């Protein structure tokens, strides 16, 4: 059974801080790892990672995957209050398109 563990469970920072969110996984026939941001109900897609060591970047957010150690990190620099959300990590195996989600990290950015 595929398994995804995220840490920390929650995090409170102040605007301007840099945060690192962690995601470790166990999956049979790994295909990809995805990061989502969930503010209200619907998660919105951030990144998909398939190869080790290649950083994906979008503005202040970046992510990297380590397939040897089976983990990924999501970095957010110069945090803003609008970054407050739950960040979800999910993995997909080669069996299909469904995702196995981690428990999420709840990030709160204070002014």
């Amino acid at each position, binding site marked *: 059974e595929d398994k995804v563990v995220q840490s920390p469970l929650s995090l409170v920072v102040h605007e301007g801080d840099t945060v690192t969110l962690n995601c470790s996984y166990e999956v049979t026939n790994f295909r*990809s790892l995805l990061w989502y941001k969930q503010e209200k109900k619907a*998660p919105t*897609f951030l990144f998909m990672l398939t190869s080790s060591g290649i950083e994906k970047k979008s503005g202040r957010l970046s992510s990297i995957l380590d397939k040897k150690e089976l983990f990924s990190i999501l970095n957010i620099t110069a945090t803003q209050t609008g970054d407050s959300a739950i960040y979800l990590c999910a993995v997909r195996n080669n069996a299909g398109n469904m995702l196995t989600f981690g428990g999420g990290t709840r990030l709160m950015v204070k002014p």
Partner: protein
Amino acid sequence: SAVISQKPSRDICQRGTSLTIQCQVDSQVTMMFWYRQQPGQSLTLIATANQGSEATYESGFVIDKFPISRPNLTFSTLTVSNMSPEDSSIYLCSVAWAGDYTGELFFGEGSRLTVL
């Protein structure tokens, strides 16, 4: 990308009743999934909705409790049957295209159910 409409957006239900959630996509999609997110929890896959055949349920979920229909490539329904307060959750429809290696799974806006 896809526009996914779910309804109802939210509802308050009485114990013992059933509610059907609809998911409409603006384009034909290969894969449709139903997820549940209980309060303070992450997303858990309920089932894969298969067009024209019975849904494929994940461990812990059964058809009698969560009957699913998918009559065509753009529409699916999830029914939460004989509801109890433990069924209070957000239910999310999601879609993907088989062979789509971009990896993105699109989500509907979710349906927040509260069972009294």
